[in-house]
């Protein structure tokens, strides 16, 4: 064991260095106090929602209801994942709902009406989304058009295209026997696979934690110690195994949600561990600084809009497979708001430069839980809209207050 003050990053005696589990907890409390809330609002929100709704209607926490909740969450979650990308840059896309509706119409037209194989139709729908994103990026880069205006125009234009494609019939039913519809309605992961997936994150945390620890020690940097890593891995593993066990009491874990989770993990990796992700945060934090550092700011913006619209399309495909139809109503109503609210509730800032892919997953569970609970209470959609609107407003207020607090505590 090297003497602590010999380590490269431990030379400055003015700084308190937190060690071990106690230190990790203390650092976490400090962060929360300074307004760096992270995932905390989500867990508090979920706790509140569970208590309130299950006391009003015990069905809310029944395993099968939660399975349904996950089925419903996947589509909005995917859309929200794209929203995270544009929010990171401090931009917004208001046309995600219309884009998802257009994608479901494309599936109906290309697959059912034109007879293309469904995977092909899905790929075309996602490509159409990427093309729309390309257009938004172009408008933003070339004409400095604020993204909320460009995408507001897109909202209407894409909705028009969706209505045009669906024509006079207004909706196209997707065949129930097809894989795509089964995927959206009944396909469940085998129990053994669910349990393996529940164990995997803990194993990955221990493995990478050990790796990082060893590398840091070899490089003469302080290492956080394995106790924190093990504690984290144990908490996460226990939580996940419990979730899977509980869901297995009902139908089990939907494939749809598993696929969504894979996309979340992929995006999280891209944002945290690649140069592209670092550039996204840099552009969101200070675009001029990013430009002078040699980052292709226009390219990064373009990529974010393309990813956003492509995820919106894929979300639309998921929604169509969930409903087994492509209709004029797809993607309208509260889809836009829910997807943006999910990202913000999960902790992605509307002001750019802060966020994570996990916020889409956690946020969408909160949003879906609210919507599911209100449906169980037999509330009309008028009340549901009002309540969801209020939740979004609260999420944005929390975001703004946390931002102000971070600024006064010297954190970005």
């Amino acid at each position, binding site marked *: 064991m090297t003497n602590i003050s010999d380590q*490269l*990053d431990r*030379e*400055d005696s*003015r*700084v308190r260095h937190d060690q071990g589990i106690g230190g990790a907890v203390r650092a976490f409390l400090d962060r929360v106090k300074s307004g760096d809330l992270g995932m905390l609002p989500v867990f508090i929100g979920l706790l509140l929602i569970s208590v309130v709704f299950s006391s009003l209607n015990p069905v809310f926490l029944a395993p099968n209801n939660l399975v349904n909740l996950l089925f419903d969450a996947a589509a909005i979650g995917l859309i929200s994942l794209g929203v995270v990308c544009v929010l990171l840059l401090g931009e917004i896309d208001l046309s995600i709902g219309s884009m998802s509706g257009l994608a479901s119409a494309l599936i109906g037209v290309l697959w059912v009406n034109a007879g293309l194989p469904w995977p092909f139709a899905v790929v075309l729908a996602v490509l159409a989304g990427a093309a729309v994103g390309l257009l938004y990026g172009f408008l933003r880069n070339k004409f400095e058009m604020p993204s909320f205006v460009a995408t507001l125009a897109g909202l209407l234009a894409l909705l028009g295209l969706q209505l045009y494609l669906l024509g006079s019939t207004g909706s196209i039913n997707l065949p129930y026997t097809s894989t795509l519809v089964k995927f959206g309605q009944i396909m469940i992961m085998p129990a053994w696979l669910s349990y393996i997936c529940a164990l995997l994150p803990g194993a990955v945390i221990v493995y990478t934690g050990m790796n*990082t620890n060893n*590398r*840091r020690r070899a*490089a*003469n*940097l302080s290492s956080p110690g394995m106790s924190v890593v093990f504690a984290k891995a144990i908490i996460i593993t226990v939580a996940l195994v419990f979730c899977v066990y509980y869901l297995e009491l009902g139908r089990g874990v939907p494939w749809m949600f598993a696929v969504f989770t894979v996309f979340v993990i992929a995006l999280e990796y891209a944002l945290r*561990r*690649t*140069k*592209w992700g*670092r*550039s996204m*945060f*840099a552009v*969101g*934090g*200070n675009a*001029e*600084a*990013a430009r*002078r*550092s*040699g*980052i292709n700011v226009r390219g990064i913006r373009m990529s974010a809009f393309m990813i956003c619209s492509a995820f919106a399309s894929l979300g639309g495909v998921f929604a169509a497979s969930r409903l087994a139809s492509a209709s004029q109503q797809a993607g309208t109503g509260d889809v836009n708001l829910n997807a943006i609210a999910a990202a913000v509730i999960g902790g992605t800032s509307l002001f750019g*430069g*802060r966020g994570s892919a996990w916020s889409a997953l956690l946020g969408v569970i909160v949003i879906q839980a609210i919507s599911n609970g209100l449906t169980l209470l037999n509330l009309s959609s008028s009340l549901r809209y009002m309540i969801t609107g209020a939740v979004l407003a609260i999420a944005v207020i929390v975001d703004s207050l946390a931002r102000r607090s*971070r*600024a006064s*505590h*010297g*954190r*970005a």
Partner: protein
Amino acid sequence: MTADKGELILKLRGVSKQFGAVTALKDIELDVHAGEVVALVGDNGAGKSTLIKVLAGVHQPTEGTIEWCGKPVSLDSPGTALELGIATVFQDLALCENLDVVSNLFLGHEINPWQLDEVQMEVRAWTLLRELAARIPSVREPIASLSGGQRQTVAIARSLLLDPKIIMLDEPTAALGVAQTAEVLNLIERVRDRGHGVILISHNMEDVRAVADRIVVLRLGQNNGVFTNETSHQELVAAITGASENSVSRRMARKQEEAV
């Protein structure tokens, strides 16, 4: 790699820059050697910023030659200047406040783009900061939590990351307190001792005379003499304003009369 000490790195001859009818720079001569601090002083509108921008590749000169290590070059974009080894620390620093020190240092030049090598980047960050004897409490804190002087340090360290031959500092001490100014001046001397050429722009004559090996005065877009740090304050002011009888000397004289 840095050049041998004293070797001539940058040589400007007859550099002119016109913006339409306005001649911003005329027949500028400038030499920068390895391991020396050249201060660029002059009044507002003397052409300091234009000259810096020409060297940073932002503006292209209308006339004249720029020689880099004995070879004529054209600096046609900021990228070319960076590749040659001319780094610029802008007055507004251009740091991302939401990212930590390591991310800012390596922004745009991350090690291992597809799987960022955080450990190696952190080691290099600490090594660089230690060479500069810089006092940054933690490289994993966001820039937002650092003081003005510490930010300046990070900006200077970042410009050194690609191991340039020359670094240009635009008003590095303008917004800093007494102690922090001293820190930055120490930093400039350490950068010089590492064998880099330094071009320093400042309005603060005290700072300039403290660290500069040569003081190049610009006036109305032209060279107006080269001085050393032994030159008196009055002489420098005279060169900057273009007359020994100027507003500064008149003010001094008036104050002296009042004192008597």
